[in-house]
């Protein structure tokens, strides 16, 4: 009996190991991209996550798209456009030979249908249980609140938008992947199931949906009737879902995948040194910052804030924790932004001056405890001290391109602060969702790490996102309110004069830097790792990267 069992086991092992590997599938040239997670959904209008967008970008197209490695919108489904003097009316001429993947034609009516669907909560396909988050954010809300008040098909291939107020970043908004156009017939036929794994998407792009196996893979294949040109040679795209960072690198090394985004910072030199692999950097369009909670009485003194800023050695942090090519940040807007980057603002490292400033502010022996101010019934900060707590520095529990290691950087930060006489505790606020929740409620009482990644390339979606509104006491972050800055940013938002907008954003950066309103640490580029056989991948600061330009050799 025992021998029979052994023989069986041996036979099994031989069978497992000896059978030759199955030859590649007959889908032609395949490009396999390693993803760290499942897409949330494939209905572009309702998703907010990068994985869904990368998938959708290959199959779904917008009216205009960011050109190559820039944040400048250029023609896509719209060939050309004109705008009225007051900026309230935009007319787009559409391409005439595009069809959706389901065979229905692409025309002005289809564009109108998509915008109406997003804009009007009464539209039958504006599903009540889904969130059209980006439309609301970029166009100020739905229905009457929407800045787009009307969309008309003025001819079969011409569509006209009417706005209630000029939008400086209108074209940039239209180029965002969430505003890619879906087939009205497909959405109507599938209802709320559109975009789920069973159904997928139906758009106009160079690749169409084949299958989505949850937590395993999403497969797209070449759209033979694509209206545009495909300069690369890929026939099949596979997004292979590999959650573990180390396993993804191993998969690249073993040839199971051709590319993936965001290897560990530690692994970047290893990949660059490898003969078969290489790294390409997506320019940093983000910022990592340390925010003050202005309910802390001590933080309302600009000298204390400046002391904290002076105590941090940004360059050392960048050299240690970021990929080579990252830069220390002095301002919120990154250097790669089209307008509004102010190179004159500098934030030096000077722990001695920090101590001096602390002493001037009345803390000659350093600072270990701080006072939290009470809020009144409307949520405004009062002068009453509610409690005294240790200084806390909250670290982010997740890695982001702008912050590759929240805990490591946090440890380094409290170390620097200690050298300048500020004895901060490193604190956590639970996992990412809990952290964001506490931050939203203004409950991160101390200093806290956070960052921002721009969506559309415009400074209004960068520094303008945070400081243009002072409507609520908590505002966008930590009870910071500056009416002067808000006024300037609102002016820039509706201006169509690029030079004037540039100057306003530069001035705002200078004003906020002078009072150390917030501490900017770094701009982190995103590394992408490739197998040598992949050529022609173009990185874009906004992450809208098209696989149609990619060529696979060998």
């Amino acid at each position, binding site marked *: 009996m025992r021998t029979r069992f052994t023989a069986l086991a041996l036979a099994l092992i031989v069978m497992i190991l000896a059978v030759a590997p199955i030859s590649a599938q007959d889908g032609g040239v395949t490009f396999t991209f390693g993803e760290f997670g499942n897409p949330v959904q494939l209905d572009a209008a309702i998703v907010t996550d990068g994985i869904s967008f990368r998938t959708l970008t290959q199959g779904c197209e917008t009216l205009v798209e960011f050109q190559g490695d820039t944040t400048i919108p250029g023609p896509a489904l719209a060939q050309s456009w004109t705008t009225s003097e007051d900026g309230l009316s935009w007319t787009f001429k559409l391409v005439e030979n595009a069809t959706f993947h389901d065979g229905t034609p692409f025309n002005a009516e289809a564009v109108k249908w998509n915008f109406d669907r997003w804009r009007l909560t009464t539209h039958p396909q504006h599903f009540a249980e889904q969130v059209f988050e980006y439309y609301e954010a970029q166009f100020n809300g739905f229905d009457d609140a929407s800045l787009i008040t009307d969309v008309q098909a003025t001819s079969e291939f011409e569509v006209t938008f009417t706005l209630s107020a000029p939008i400086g970043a209108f074209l940039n908004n239209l180029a965002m992947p969430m505003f890619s156009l879906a087939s009205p017939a497909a959405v109507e036929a599938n209802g709320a199931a559109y975009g789920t794994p069973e159904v997928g998407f139906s758009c106009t792009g160079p690749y169409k949906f084949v299958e989505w196996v949850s937590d395993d893979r999403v497969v797209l294949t070449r759209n033979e009737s694509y209206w545009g040109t495909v300069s690369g040679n890929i026939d099949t795209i596979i997004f292979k879902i590999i959650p573990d960072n*180390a396993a993804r690198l191993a998969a690249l090394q073993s040839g199971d995948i051709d590319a993936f985004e965001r290897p560990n910072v530690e692994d970047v030199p290893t990949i660059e040194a490898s003969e078969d692999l290489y790294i390409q950097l997506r320019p940093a369009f983000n910022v990592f910052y340390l925010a003050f909670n202005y309910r802390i009485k001590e933080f309302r003194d600009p000298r204390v804030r400046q002391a904290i800023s002076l105590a941090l050695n940004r360059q050392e942090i960048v050299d240690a924790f970021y990929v080579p090519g990252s830069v220390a940040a002095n301002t919120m807007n990154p250097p790669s932004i089209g307008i509004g980057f102010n190179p004159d603002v500098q934030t030096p490292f000077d722990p001695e001056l920090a101590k001096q400033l602390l002493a001037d502010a009345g803390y000659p022996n350093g600072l270990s405890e701080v006072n939290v101010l009470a809020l009144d019934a409307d949520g405004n900060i009062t002068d009453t001290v509610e409690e005294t707590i240790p200084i806390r520095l909250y670290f982010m529990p997740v890695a982001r391109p702008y912050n590759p290691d929240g805990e490591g950087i946090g440890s380094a930060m409290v170390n620097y602060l200690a050298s300048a006489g500020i004895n901060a505790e490193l604190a956590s606020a639970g996992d990412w969702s809990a952290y964001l929740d506490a931050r939203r409620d203004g409950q991160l009482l101390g200093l806290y790490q956070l960052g921002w990644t721009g969506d559309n390339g415009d400074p209004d979606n960068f520094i303008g996102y945070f400081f243009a509104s002072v409507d609520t006491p908590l505002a966008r972050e930590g009870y910071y309110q500056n009416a002067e800055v808000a006024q300037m940013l609102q002016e820039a938002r509706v201006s169509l004069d690029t030079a004037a907008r540039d100057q306003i954003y530069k001035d705002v950066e200078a004003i906020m830097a002078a009072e150390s309103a917030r501490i900017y640490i770094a701009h982190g580029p995103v590394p992408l790792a490739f197998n040598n056989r992949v050529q022609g991948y173009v990185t874009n600061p906004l992450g809208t990267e098209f696989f149609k330009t990619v060529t696979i050799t060998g």
Partner: protein
Amino acid sequence: MTSTTQAQPRLALTRRSERDVRLEQLRDFSRRLWRSPSAKLGGILAFATLLAAIFVPLLDKYDAIRDGSLPARYAPPDCIVAWLESQFSASPEKLSLNGLTCEYPFGADKNGRDIMRRVGHGMSVSLSVGIFVVIISLTIGTTIGLIAGFSGGWFESVSMRLMDVILAFPSLLLAIALVTVAGASLTNGMIAIAVTQIPTFARLTRSMAISIRNTEYVTAARSLGASGGKIMISHVLPNSLAPLIVQSTLLLGTAVIETAALGFLGLGQQPPWPELGKMLAESQPALASGKWWVMFFPGLTIILIVLGFNLLGDALRDALDPRLRGN
């Protein structure tokens, strides 16, 4: 041969006073313990761990906040590397020990902190967590299991269903949920892990109690008028001891590793303070690029701690339980 060695002290019992019996048992126990090689190895490891855990924090005042310097990020273990190079280098001359600096004997971590110091301090944290978890879950679990298994009835159904509920949820996820609700700290982490381990003990004790409650000697004890509680303590508990010790020794390791997982998720020991499992988890990104020391030293320490207590636990069980005493 077994029967003869065992029969003699039992016969002698009646004639001696209880104190003598205990002394004799103790002597017997330690003699058996001393003879076992795994007890020796385990004992040495466990003793060394205990010593280090007690004395490192006493002798070395460690301020994690002020430790570290980014330029020293991932500094290799200087003297070990130099020694290895001298051993395997082509040149015949051996490296002189005078020129050797041992600034980072175990290397430095991602923040340029001395791994040797952090391993020392992390050990004492991990060990206290492990012991604490074992004590809590052993006490509560055994009590519940004994009462449930022996008395049966409503208490058994209610408590065992409760144990099922706890067991039905992955222990780590349950611990995460508990800690997120109660707040992230080492103490809450310990309690959460302990709670998730209670069912294992409860069920184990219960199954022992069930299999014993119908045996002849319990029936006999009962008919002689012994109360339930007395029977539990004098009969069921000693008989359950062996599997409980096995489970406890295994749990010590599990607790150290689960604390690590909690620490990894930012829910256990708060950074920058060290804890072994957390150090291990932190070393993950450095592994592929060949920075072995970041994982090796904390990893080895954990393995040695767990191994030590497991070996010792094994030997203790053998020595404690005469029925397990082989030839």
